[in-house]
């Protein structure tokens, strides 16, 4: 751009705050009432969570009358909540998986590293995670029944997104196709999965898939759940991608075809780069939804973060500290998802700015 853009003038912060909080009688009253209600609501919570809380010690010290939250319980059961039934002396493996996954997430979040080299990197990381957790690389082996906690939540979400992506892409293209049967099949698949609750899909994966396989064949329980999560979200992702495809004007396809590009080339070189760029923030938001919804694995007996937290409160020595366990799990989920949603907002702004210049 040739001209210099100046930011619009804004009032100083303190001025904005003063008029926002005490501009006029009514506003001042609302401020005071809100403050009062906030203190009234927050005070018992703070007393429970901080002032009366037991930070260290044993379950006995938490059972004292008038004691608040028992954070000593979190200290004692932290490893169980994070890794569930994974053998304690081997818990460096899930810890390493979490570190690798988070490092890769941070790397992929930075637009300067965006390239197709990330795809094999992620595939390698997911395969590595699976082999490491299973103990194929470094015996002893650990059955997937003993996997649990944060690695399950992270790996199932990320693998769900990764495997859902190609399926969703095909579904979105099929839904726009001029071939009637292909279009109808895609619509039926997408609308069916979007119409039923996720729990029904997980029940199918748990109860029906074993019946539908030929006798003798069996698929691992975690893998079945993973397939369920993947198919469920591929339907939602397909709709997100379709919204992106609709952003690209039809004339561009016609122009590409008239230049002699084939269908696949047109889609790959002309349509998808624009369509996907338009929906990156929506895909990040959907990923947050996937992380939140993997908590439903708890219902079918897989020890994800939420189920591990819940089970930690059934330990006979630390019985019944459910509220503490849930609050802790909520903090972990919030940390992951809030970071994700801030990132999505930042990214949207950045992409919009890039599009404008």
């Amino acid at each position, binding site marked *: 751009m040739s001209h210099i853009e100046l930011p619009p003038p804004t009032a100083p912060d303190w001025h904005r705050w003063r008029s926002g909080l005490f501009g006029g009688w009514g506003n001042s009253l609302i*401020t005071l009432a809100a403050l009062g209600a906030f203190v009234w609501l927050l005070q018992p919570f703070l007393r429970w969570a901080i002032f009366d809380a037991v930070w260290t010690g044993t379950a006995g010290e938490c059972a004292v009358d008038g004691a608040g939250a028992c954070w000593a319980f979190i200290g004692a059961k932290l490893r169980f909540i994070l890794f569930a039934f994974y053998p304690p002396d081997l818990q460096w493996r899930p810890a390493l998986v979490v570190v690798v996954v988070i490092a890769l997430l941070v790397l992929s979040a930075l637009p300067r590293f965006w390239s197709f080299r990330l795809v094999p990197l992620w595939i390698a990381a997911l395969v590595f995670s699976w082999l490491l957790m299973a103990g194929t690389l470094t015996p002893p082996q650990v059955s997937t029944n003993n996997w649990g906690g944060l690695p399950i939540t992270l790996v199932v979400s990320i693998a769900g997104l990764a495997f859902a992506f190609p399926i969703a892409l095909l579904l979105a293209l099929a839904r726009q196709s001029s071939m009637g049967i292909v279009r109808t099949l895609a619509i039926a698949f997408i609308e069916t999965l979007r119409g039923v609750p996720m*729990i029904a899909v997980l029940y199918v994966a748990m109860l029906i898939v074993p*019946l*539908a396989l030929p006798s003798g064949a069996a698929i691992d329980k975690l893998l079945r759940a993973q397939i369920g999560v993947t198919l469920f979200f591929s339907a939602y992702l397909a709709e997100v991608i379709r919204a992106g495809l609709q952003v690209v004007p039809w004339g561009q396809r016609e122009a590409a075809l008239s230049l002699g590009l084939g269908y696949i080339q047109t889609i790959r070189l002309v349509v998808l780069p624009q369509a996907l760029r338009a929906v990156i923030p929506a895909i990040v938001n959907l990923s947050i939804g996937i992380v939140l919804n993997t908590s439903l694995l708890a219902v079918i007996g897989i020890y994800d973060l939420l189920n591990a937290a819940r089970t930690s409160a059934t330990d006979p020595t630390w019985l019944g500290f459910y509220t503490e366990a849930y609050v802790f799990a909520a903090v972990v989920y919030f940390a992951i998802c809030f970071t994700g949603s801030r990132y999505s907002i930042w990214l949207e702004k950045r992409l919009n700015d890039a599009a404008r210049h």
Partner: protein
Amino acid sequence: MTSTLQPGPQGPGFPSRLRTWLGPLPFQQLLLFAGVLAIFALFGSNTADSMQRMGLTPGFGFLFHQANFEIGETVFPYAAGDTYARALAAGLANTVKVAMVGCVLATVLGVALGIARLSGNLLLATFVHAYVELLRNTPLLLQLFLWSAIIHALPPPRGAYAFLDSVYLSNRGVYVPSVSLHGLSWAIWLPAILLTAYASLSLARRLLTGAAFYMPKAAVTVLGSLIVCSFALTSFGLAATVDLPAKGGFNIKGGLSLTPEFFALLIGLVVNASASISEIVRSGIQSVKSGQWEAARALGLSPAQILRLVVLPQALRVITPLMISSFLDLTKNSSLAVAIGYPDIVSVANTTANTTGQALEAICIIAAVYLTLSLSVSALMNLYNRRVVLRGELRR
């Protein structure tokens, strides 16, 4: 409809329309369709074999067998020994109950929060923002578990928390006042309710179609019906009594008692949905360009008039479809009831699958219930979009 009677070119015939619908590569498409059918047939025959091996007969005949389990709470009478069909119907009624009450309460709370967010008061807006972020970034199932844990940690009925001596919170349930009607009063109340419903529906319709807003007429209808009713009630000596719950010994008597499971599910769903609804209301009202406010102000309309005549009719076009999809989400989310012990349709179907082994049929029933709901709602939405949104576009 009457194309054959009209002069001019004929429309394309059925074979030609079929060819257009099929598009390119018809034979490969038919092959694909056959492949999909074959996969389903393979899975189907495998499932039938597996069920045979377990000694089960595929099909819905089991629905008329005796169900030997109890259901914690039902809308209509049900006892162990009734048929599975009745048990499933009881579960469906429970789903409908929590979804309907939940949608109403979530709308009230969500709209209030959305308005608070827009009120211009910075503190209030910040609080609501924090509330929304907190609820949107934690799993709903976790919220339900937490509500359930909190309710089970309440004191027993003897030491129940009381609000205004009419609402009691205890670990055995929540007690709220109930209204009961006597004698003929239904005959008087029913027309009143119908009239009010009609008036509010017509109000909504006028709002949604963006036509002029006949506030006085609707208000007169509602007020008039209320006055007639109260007059009728007092003159005939028929009354509706309010039954307040009260502490008595070890339990709380009277009023309407809500089980801890129902209450935990309801409050969890309502609080969760209110966060999205408040965002919908906020974004809907903000979607109306500020120029519209300024133009209306320049015409001399009062702030209330601007909101009613200019902003809301436009905002509601954005809000309504989103609101309906968030009602649908709430209904689908009510399936998490199975995790906290509320006997909704999923929970009852799950019990049915466990006791009879007819897992496939049970899941088909769950899917059929939710699919019917979702598809009919999306059909209605398409109708709405065609009628309202498109016409709005054209008019502009």
